[in-house]
């Protein structure tokens, strides 16, 4: 279970998260929606451990462990995975080298046996096939020249390879065509399990038709302004965020 209490976080002296509370029990999928700039990506980065964001107050625990005391790599080993809103291109780092280094680092940290190169190749090929990723793409440097949609799919490939227990998907649906959306959603749904929690950040109700959330939260002004069940997303689709923007005034 993920438990966030009274989280305050700032960047460059600007407070973005202002007392955020959130609980995601094991096995549940929670959607986070909210206007642009409300702090959704900030929350995702803070969960993953990006250094620039300074947590000034509050706590985050994951299955009882204090995430705030852990470095990003330790959090990954503990099961945290962030699918980035904007996956970065890394010239010169071969995708396969990156994937193998990442997966074996995490396996080692979890006390699992590291994959040999041929074993790993087989595992990657299997996962890539399910996500309809052309293996030729994996021969390129990481994300280099990948289309927006290809980058998002590559994020989900990494997620399935790293076998996380807390998945945070930051607008993984944006930039995906209709078919890709279904492939990615299927990929995510395959990972749904009783001991895995997920946070799905999205602007669109459409994704939530495929990945049906247990709870929906609206983030506004750095706080959870409203929570509800899956129907809340449908309601927001009609009414928009006017209500929440109003609060800001």
């Amino acid at each position: 279970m993920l438990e966030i209490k009274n989280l305050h976080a700032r960047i460059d002296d600007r407070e973005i998260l202002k007392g955020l509370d959130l609980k995601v029990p094991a096995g549940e999928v929670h959607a986070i929606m909210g206007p642009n700039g409300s702090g959704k990506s900030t929350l995702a980065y803070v969960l993953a451990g990006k250094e620039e964001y300074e947590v000034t107050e509050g706590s985050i625990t994951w299955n009882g462990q204090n995430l705030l005391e852990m470095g990003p790599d330790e959090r990954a080993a503990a099961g945290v995975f962030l699918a980035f809103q904007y996956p970065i291109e890394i010239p010169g780092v071969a995708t396969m080298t990156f994937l193998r280094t990442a997966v074996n680092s995490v396996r080692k940290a979890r006390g699992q046996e590291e994959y040999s190169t041929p074993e790993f190749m087989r595992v990657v090929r299997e996962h890539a096939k399910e996500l309809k990723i052309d293996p030729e793409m994996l021969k390129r440097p990481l994300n280099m020249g990948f289309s927006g949609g290809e980058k998002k799919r590559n994020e989900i490939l990494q997620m399935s390879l790293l076998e996380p227990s807390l998945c945070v998907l930051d607008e993984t649906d944006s930039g995906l065509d209709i078919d890709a959306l279904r492939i990615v959603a299927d990929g995510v749904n395959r990972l749904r399990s009783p001991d895995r929690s997920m946070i799905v950040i999205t602007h669109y109700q459409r994704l939530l038709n495929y990945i049906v959330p247990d709870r929906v939260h609206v983030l506004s002004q750095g706080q959870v302004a409203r929570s509800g069940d899956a129907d809340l997303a449908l309601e927001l689709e009609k009414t928009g965020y006017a209500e929440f923007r109003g609060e800001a005034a």
Partner: protein
Amino acid sequence: MDLPVKQLRSKAEQDLLDVFSAVNEALPGAENKTVAKIRSDALADYASVGLPHRRVEAWKYTDLRSQMPEAFPLVQASGRAISDAEIETALSPRIAGIDAYRLVVAEGEFRPELSDVTALKEKGAELHSLAETLEHLPEELKPLLAESGYQRSGFEVAPTATKQIPDPIIALNKALMTGGVILRLKQGAALDKPVHLINLDGEGEPSASVTRAIVVLEKGTSLDLIESYASLGGRGLQRNAMTQIVLGESAAIEHSKLQLEDAEAMHLANLIVTMGAEARYNGFQYSLGARLSRNDVRVLFEGEGGTMSFNGAALLKDSQHCDTTMVVEHMVPHCTSRELYKAVLDGDSRGVFQAKVIVAPDAQKTDGKQMGQALLLSQGAEFDTKPELEIFADDVVCGHGATSGQIDEDLLFYLEARGIPEPTARALLIQAFVGEALEQIEDEPVREALTAATADWLGVAFD
């Protein structure tokens, strides 16, 4: 105001003159008048300018005079056997293991018994010991031996440049060279493997090694040349190595130079490449060792349609200093030159990359680009770069760029967020930075060996 400057020699400057007086009569070719004249003229050139210092524009960032407190005596060759194991230790097993014809120059002398002389000759290569050649210098080699490294062009527009100032490092090489090799591929000769010229010095008492390698590729021939420089010990080595590569029409060379000397060594190197019509030079310089290293590279396009690509990487730490200074002269039309230099600087190290491209008035359609990049891993590291374009023709495409920065935190976070511990993530990014230059090496075993050497330097392995 020009005041006559009183010649005040530093200790090292005087030492070098003394070294010459001490060994002059015993140097190879001492009996040969032409050679003796080349040597004495060169010494006079050196004496007229002394060691380079920071007020000499090309040595702005490398004040050799102040960094060289004394000059060591020339190495006394013992001629002792050097085992494969020792070579492996000096070069690293990977680099020593590259399948190639070996030419070994140790203690300033060519060592035929450690070299693949017979095999090379069977393949049609002409090979001579420099020391033997100096005893009876053939006329056609004279200009090569007497090379001063002077700029060839650009005087039409910049007449002041006609007053050539001798290069003291080349002058010292001419005055003091003790050995080396001369390798020639005649038309039609072809080698099935690279040639690995291994230079080993620095054993025992502090000493200087002054060597020369001359490689001539006649029309249409090609060669894969690896030059490695390493130490046999760590008591103090001052090296002055000069390599001349002459590429005939349509000749092609893949040239990798690996500098792997011990952390106390001083490495002064000159490379002069002359490019015939349609010739192709693809070079890589890898600088890992030495406390102070200076690589002077001159590329002269003498025939139309030549293509040159020069790439380099320096991985430095502690107080290492590595300076690579290039002059590329486009004297004729339709030639292309590319330079890409990468420095990874840790500790208090300092990297220097200076590249000057000169385009002579009739060298139209020249395409010249250069890029120097540094990755600074510590507060104390410093990178100095100075690109220079002297363009006297109007129809050319020339450009230069330079960047210097730290590891990108966003990239680092992305890798760490995937579970990769920070040191490994940093190493991956550094490897990627250097990789862009390493990729230019066409010889796969060399590229792989240097990629592995880079990983070793970083203290990681990505299999």
